[in-house]
């Protein structure tokens, strides 16, 4: 930091304070520059969080009218809800399946997209489309594709002769999670592919060349050199995908539009349905579920980061 310090001199009493005038700014001026961002965070993040907590401690009528205080009852009601176990299990399966499958496929596709071939630019643009299109539109499209009576997928499968009766992709309980995961992977691929393309681009060529010269097979090269060097990209992709997929509402809500109850819901759609569609129709319970959701994702991300850091320490 400071180039003027020599051996034996005591460290500066205020850490980080530079002795030169450049870069020193009066605290109030700093506040002025920060004000827009602070206002945004206060208004869009902190204030709704406070109101959410406030709502979770209120008792609400079915019309939405706040009738008084509920203490911690809403939290107790959420925790004792009979479908909570199903919802939690669905959430775990949904997040793990979508993130894992997305990462595996993206690694392969990114590998392909860094090679140069004619038309590569167009393929890269085409890959962006599922991400650019609104999730609601994509989900509605898949609802039509999966339809039992009129869907193209059933039509094609029956035409080829693979199946003789149409598959009820969305209504048959054993197929629903699979159908949801397909859509989830479809919309998560573009972002992950591009993160990995960037990650692959950061790997220096001479390391790979050295390995080739030493006689490493392509698989050994990939497993022992490329993947470890992709660790930062993998970490970013995993954390961000876990957060996006956990928070994903439109896909699950739209695909389950005709499905009653909570059989295939994740905690996010569960929270929404508690407020507006379920037989409980209780805003207070929904707010309590919302608080749980925030805590859940914070815990997951914190745990994940802790594990990664731990690995970084031991790998030195």
């Amino acid at each position, binding site marked *: 930091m400071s180039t003027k310090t020599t051996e034996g001199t005591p460290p500066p009493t205020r850490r980080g304070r530079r002795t030169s005038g450049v870069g020193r700014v009066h605290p109030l001026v700093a506040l002025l520059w920060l004000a827009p961002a602070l206002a945004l965070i206060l208004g869009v993040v*902190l204030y709704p*969080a*406070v*109101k959410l*907590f*406030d*709502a979770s*401690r*209120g008792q*609400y*009528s*079915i*019309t*939405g*009218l*706040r*009738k*008084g205080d509920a203490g911690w009852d809403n939290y107790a009601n959420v925790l004792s809800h009979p479908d909570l176990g199903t919802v939690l299990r669905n959430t775990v399966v949904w997040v793990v399946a979508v993130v894992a499958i997305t990462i595996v496929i993206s690694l392969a596709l990114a590998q392909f997209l860094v090679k140069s071939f004619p038309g590569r630019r167009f393929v890269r643009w085409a890959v962006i489309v599922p991400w650019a299109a609104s999730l609601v539109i994509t989900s509605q499209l898949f609802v039509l594709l999966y339809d*039992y*009576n009129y869907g193209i997928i059933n039509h094609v499968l029956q035409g080829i002769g693979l199946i003789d009766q*149409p598959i*009820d992709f*969305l*209504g*048959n309980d054993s197929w629903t999670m699979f159908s949801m995961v397909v859509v989830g992977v479809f919309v998560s691929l573009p972002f992950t592919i591009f993160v990995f393309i960037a990650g692959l681009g950061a790997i220096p060529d001479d390391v790979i060349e050295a390995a080739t010269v030493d006689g490493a097979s392509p698989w050994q090269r990939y497993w022992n050199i490329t993947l470890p060097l992709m660790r930062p990209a993998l970490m970013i992709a995993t954390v961000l995908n876990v957060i996006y997929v956990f928070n994903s509402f439109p896909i699950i809500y739209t695909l389950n*539009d*005709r*499905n*009653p*109850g909570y059989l295939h819901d994740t905690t996010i759609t569960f929270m929404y349905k508690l*407020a*507006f*569609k*379920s*037989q409980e*129709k209780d*805003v207070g319970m929904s707010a309590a579920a919302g608080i749980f959701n925030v805590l859940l994702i914070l815990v997951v991300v914190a745990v994940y980061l802790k594990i990664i850091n731990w690995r970084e320490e031991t790998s030195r």
Partner: protein
Amino acid sequence: MSWTKKSVVVAGLAVAGLALGACGGGTGAGSAGAGGSTGGGQEAKTIKIVAAEYSKDHTKAFWDAFAKTYKEKTGYTLEVQVVSWDNIDQQSSTMIQNNQAPDILNLNAYASYAKDGLLYDSDAVLPAAVKGDILDTFVKYGTYEGKFYGFPDLSSARAFFYNKTLFKQAGINEPPKTWAELEADAKKIAATGNVGYALPLGPEESQGEFSMWLFNNGGTWKDAGKWTINSDKNVETLTFLKKLTDAKLTQNNPARTNRADAFDLFKSGKAGMVIGFSPLAADLDKSKKVDYAVAPFPTNDGSESKTFGVTDYLMAFKKPGNEKAVKAFYELYYQPDQVNTFIKAEGFLPVTKSGVGAFAGEGKLKVYLDTLPNAQLTPTDDPTWDKVKLAVQQNLGGAMSGDPKAVLDKLQQTAETTK
């Protein structure tokens, strides 16, 4: 390390912020009827209506024209907001949470709002002549605890639609009059590779479909103040529907089919029978693809067919100073040239005695009009019904793959334990 200390400070601030906010009593704790845009004692010159979107073409056009007439005749301004049926429930719930309820709300329920003390009753805002003109059955179901709160905007009655082409193909000469005949006819149609009876028991409106069936087996939702959801007759009805499903006489997976899907099957000529209403008839007439006819719904034992009627409500929220403007609104809305124009444009049925007379000339609607004054409705005058309706929507379809009696028992329990 500095990172840990900083994060502890940030986390501490966040928790402190949340705790302060919650302990502060909550700004949303407004009581019923609070929060108008006018000051106390001041008369409101502008009122707002949140209307449900019955159709893309007609609803907004009608309300905009109505607002213009309203301004000319009374001098008050009417703000119109049209919301799709898909999320009008969510939007109205949000508005009430924020103490920003509109002055008039167009919804398919009213009793819970009346129970919360949010509404004006007819003595305050409905001219006596209008109340006398509204059909008695609608006044009955719009009355909560002796006061008339739920003013109907339009009504619909369900009827039995059948596909004449498919009937002829299957060798059936006339529409079924009993359930046994319906089952036999469905079997014949299913044998030709089509859907015998399109049964929508999905979460959108399974209570509507089930209502038509149970009324025609002599069952009821509520009788003399007591819930009768799991009566023997209703269990018999639901078991019959399960029988139809198991024998594959309906389309695939009725528990996951909504009305729109059932209508699509009928409109594309793939289903032999369905319960429909006048907008479906209007669609079929426009596309001219299906040779269909309407008949009274078959009853289990062949006795007289019962009509299932549905009405939506235009309820008035109590806000300081808006009583006069709201009263002027209803006076204008129930003028025959206003209310009947709206109903005719949307293809529904009248709600007033004068309206029934005015519609008498419409041949297509005769089969509904004759039975409308005696239509049976779901118990919308009971706030508990609002909750039971949601429970039915989420659970009734489950009987198709489970036990009908258990499902109805659970619904009965929900109805009886709701306060």
